[in-house]
């Protein structure tokens, strides 16, 4: 029986660029270069490894995002995923985590799945809650924040390195998994992969395809409101000294002056 894997990937503003907010206090996704969230590359990588170990598996990558989010899908396809779904609708602009999880859950159900694999967090919102929310909505086990994952005989196993302990987890499929950046380096797309990706199918769905009303998502449907966003004032220039043999002493002097010693 084939193993149907859906990987959720987000198209995010480049963290090394000048990220900012648009006038409506949503993340500006137009004026900043975007890319496949690096943390979702780990999810694609683990999906590929799980598929390689399975007899028969199919990987669908799924994104919710503007037109340019197709770039994220292409990247995932060129890494080796089989097909892609792009959920795009003007009414999605400004959707928060609760709304995102609704759209992802509906899309995952429509696509058909045994295993959903997500990244640990998006690099723009950094909430790290969407996988848990999708699991709650789907009513399937959440096996999240794994630094090691494997699937065998309809059971997913993994290691979750928490604050207090490292835990071994186990759940029956269908399940929602998220993986951390400790799960293993993501592969680079090969030239062959990039060429092959051009021919792989990318489906486009809108809210109607998913039976979601416009009011349930977007800025209007959001459960949270951002009232203000202010740029953090640049830190006042500090004192910088070159070590001429007295650096340690000078630093101690500074720390003592600040009452740290």
């Amino acid at each position: 029986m084939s193993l149907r894997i859906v990987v959720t990937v987000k198209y995010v503003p480049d963290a090394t660029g000048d990220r900012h907010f648009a006038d409506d206090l949503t993340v500006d996704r137009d004026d900043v270069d975007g890319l496949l969230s690096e943390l979702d590359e780990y999810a694609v990588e683990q999906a590929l490894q799980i598929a390689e170990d399975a007899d028969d598996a199919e990987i669908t990558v799924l994104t919710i995002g503007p037109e340019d989010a197709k770039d994220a899908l292409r990247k995932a396809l060129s890494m080796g995923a089989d097909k892609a779904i792009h959920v795009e609708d003007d009414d999605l602009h400004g959707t928060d985590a609760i709304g995102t999880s609704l759209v992802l859950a509906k899309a995952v159900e429509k696509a058909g799945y045994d295993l959903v694999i997500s990244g640990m967090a998006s690099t723009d919102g950094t909430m790290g809650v969407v996988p848990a929310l999708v699991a709650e909505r789907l009513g399937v086990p959440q096996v999240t924040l794994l630094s090691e994952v494997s699937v065998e005989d309809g059971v997913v196993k993994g290691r979750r390195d928490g604050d207090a302990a490292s835990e071994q987890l186990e759940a029956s499929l269908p399940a929602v998994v998220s993986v951390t950046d400790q799960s293993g380096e993501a592969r680079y797309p090969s030239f062959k992969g990039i060429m092959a990706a051009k021919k792989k199918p990318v489906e486009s769905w809108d809210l109607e395809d998913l039976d979601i009303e416009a009011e349930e998502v977007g800025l209007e449907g959001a459960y949270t409101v951002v009232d203000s966003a202010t740029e953090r004032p640049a830190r006042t220039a500090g004192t910088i000294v070159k070590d001429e043999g007295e650096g340690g002493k000078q630093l101690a002097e500074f720390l003592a002056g600040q009452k740290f010693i």
Partner: protein
Amino acid sequence: MAEVLVYVDHVDGAVRKPTLELLTLARRIGEPVAVALGGGAADTAAALAEHGAVKVLTHEAAEYADYLVVPKVDALQAAYEAVSPSAVLVPSSAEGKEIAARLALRIGSGIITDAVDLEAGEEGPVATQSVFAASFTTKSRVAKGTPVITVKPNSAAVEAAPAAGAVEALAVSFSDKATGTKVTGRTPRESTGRPELTEAAIVVSGGRGVNGAENFAIIEALADSLGAAVGASRAAVDAGWYPHSNQVGQTGKSVSPQLYIASGISGAIQHRAGMQTSKTIVAINKDAEAPIFDLVDYGIVGDLFDVVPALTEEVKSRKG
């Protein structure tokens, strides 16, 4: 006065500091009612009462340790239904965020994660967040339902505010989803005897410049002289020089200590994301052009192998 539900993070009854900070914030918006689950839950009451909990709802069951997240969501939901609070506050750990999010979804509410401050507002609590690697500060509210907010460590001072802290047993019936993800093994983290990274007043971190696992001894020596926690950049962690649990940054811990000392760390955006809100920042780096120097209050351009041991000696002799 409206009651505010506070989810308690504790280890066998020992309440962790971020929960006490939450009580400070909770008192700004109402009367804190604490929810403590799992082994030792009742032992948390004294500390919680001393910091303002009017009530402590407790429930012990093996499910909390044997299954992931969902039993705790079931319990928090039971508490929510019993208390009808005006807000729910949860410590911003990885698990805390997942619990809070699932609760919010169940009760038809919005969720705000990683708040660094919280005030009462006309339309409900206003949360301050630090976003885009701390380059922006936002103020947000939950617009629908009962606000569910997770708060980062070091967001408020722990304050004594004695209250009744009456212990009450919470009635919890687990949902059929509670046992979906089984915890089949658990290896507790070994204690280093140093302060918890996210809670420490001082953090001393080393990066690729430390150049080897064995050299982290000099970072640890400085940390110990200051009573600090030890952090590491991802480059140092990826090289296998220091455990991932000590990584500071976007995919590691986010810290906000009084003093952060970075040695041999360039200051990449992902590292800054986890330390930029530190009150005082100090860096030692041999490259005068390293971006970390844009953040510092005091920086030494020099070799960490000279500067760090010298600093450690100075600290020790000054402390006598």
